[in-house]
Each structure stands twice: as structure tokens, then as C-alpha cells.
């Protein structure tokens, strides 16, 4: 990519396109362009995959052990720890 003028113009719309929030006329334009532009299709596919990977990783990792106890203690809420 991406010295092609259409590719350049489309780039700022791709994030909304993959969210499905882009207006229909622009979606059609992007889809028509992607049918002929392998590079833009790859950017869209890998952008979608990037977002999916991050969303899937969002709940990963637990909070440190005893974090809750330390927080309750700092907030003077020890009496509510077992509730």
C-alpha cells in the first residue's frame, strides 16, 4: 500500500466500518474498493483480528492476591471484608 488516493481516503473510515457504525453509502464504497484492492482487504481483515484479539484478552489476568484486603484496610472497611 498505500500511495493510492482511494486507499488513503478510506483509512480513516475503517475503524467505524469494522464496528458496523459507518453510514451505508460509505460502506458500499469501501466494499466496492476492497473487491479490487487486496491491500485494503488485508488491512481490514487484520484490523478486525487485532480488535478481536484485544477484546478476547480483556478479562485476562486476575487481581493480585490480597489486593482486596489491602484496599478494604486502606479505606477503613475491614469490618465488611467477609460480607
Amino acid at each position, binding site marked *: 500500500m*498505500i500511495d493510492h488516493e482511494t486507499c488513503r481516503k478510506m483509512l480513516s473510515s475503517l475503524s467505524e466500518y469494522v464496528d458496523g457504525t459507518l453510514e451505508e453509502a460509505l460502506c458500499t464504497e469501501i466494499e466496492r474498493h476492497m473487491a479490487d484492492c487486496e491491500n485494503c482487504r488485508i488491512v481490514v481483515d487484520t484490523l478486525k483480528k487485532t480488535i478481536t484479539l484485544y477484546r478476547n484478552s480483556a478479562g485476562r489476568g486476575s487481581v493480585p492476591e490480597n489486593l482486596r484486603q489491602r484496599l478494604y484496610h486502606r*479505606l477503613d472497611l475491614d469490618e465488611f471484608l467477609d460480607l
Partner: protein
Amino acid sequence: MINHPPSGTLSLEALRTGDRAEFARMVETYYQPIYRLALRMLSNPQDAEDILQETFLKAYRGLGGFDGRSSLSTWLYRIAINEALMFLRRKHPELVSVDDPVNDGEGEQQPREIVDWCCLPEEEFMSSEAQAQLDRAADSLPASLRVVFVLRDLEGLSTRETAEVLNLSEMAVKTRLSRARLRLRDELSGYFSERLQEGKQP
């Protein structure tokens, strides 16, 4: 995945009047998402824990004046984000603030990496090395983009909610999210295209 803790059962009235039991229920409801948010912003567990504690201390002092115009979660996120950004500014004064315009005249950064790595086997994406790469890429974003990306794509806030938390226009949220995602795509493409090459070697 995405997590909006239910706040409907918390009594704003009790919280405003300083009811300790109700405050403890609020802490219980929100401490995990607030900690995750702080960790995503600061990338350091001890710093994130400090921000978590500071957020609830500030919240306790501020609840009396909380007018309920935004939701409780939006209000808490806002306190946590402000604390995290203040921390970052103290530690790295050279970093841009969330209020700075993000080179709006320059348009999007052009993609550097055009390799279709979506076809890699799923275990490539699940490896601890790949997950560490995801973290590194997110950490490399400037704070003004990272905060939008964390709220929208990791915490699952809507554009409107993110705009409210950060006191930005919805258009600014969309622009920053777009730039954050394109940068992350580029960063990950560098890594995953190497994995693809290695997989092809005999």
C-alpha cells in the same frame, strides 16, 4: 469479556450520606474493573494499586456532591483516569495529556505492514509470547490514544460513555480510537508476519 458491573442495586442516597456499608458494596462492585483500567494505563501492578486506593478515597470524599447526572461507573472511571493521567504526568512530564489535540491535521498514519496473518493457527494467538506482544503494543500507544482504546475496546464503554468520561467530543473519541487501532494493527502485523514466515520455513 466486557464488563459493566451492575450498579442498579446501589443506593445513591445512602452513598451520598456516607453510609459505610453501602460504600463497601460500591467498592466490591467496582474495584476489579477500576484496578484493570489502572493497570492498563500504567502497566505496573503497584502503581495501579495506588491509583485504585486513591480513586476510592477521592470517591468517598466526593460522593456527597455527586449529582447523579452521569452513572456511578462513569464517575468512578473519570476519577480513576484523572488519577492515572496525573500519575503519568508526574512520572513522565514529557507525555502528552489526554486533552492535547492528536495531530488532527495530519490524517491517519499509513499502514506499513501489509501481510495477511489472520490465517495463523489459533494457538499462535493464544501463546504467552503473543499476549505479551499485545501488552507491549498497547503500552507503546501515547496516553491520549491508549485511554480511549482501553475504555472502548477493553472495558466496552460506548462512544458516548467514553466521551463523557474523558470530557471529549464523540468525534474526538472516534478519531482517537481509529488511530489507536491502526497503530496496534501495524505493531501486531510486524510480530505476526514474522510468525507466519517462521511457519513457512521447512
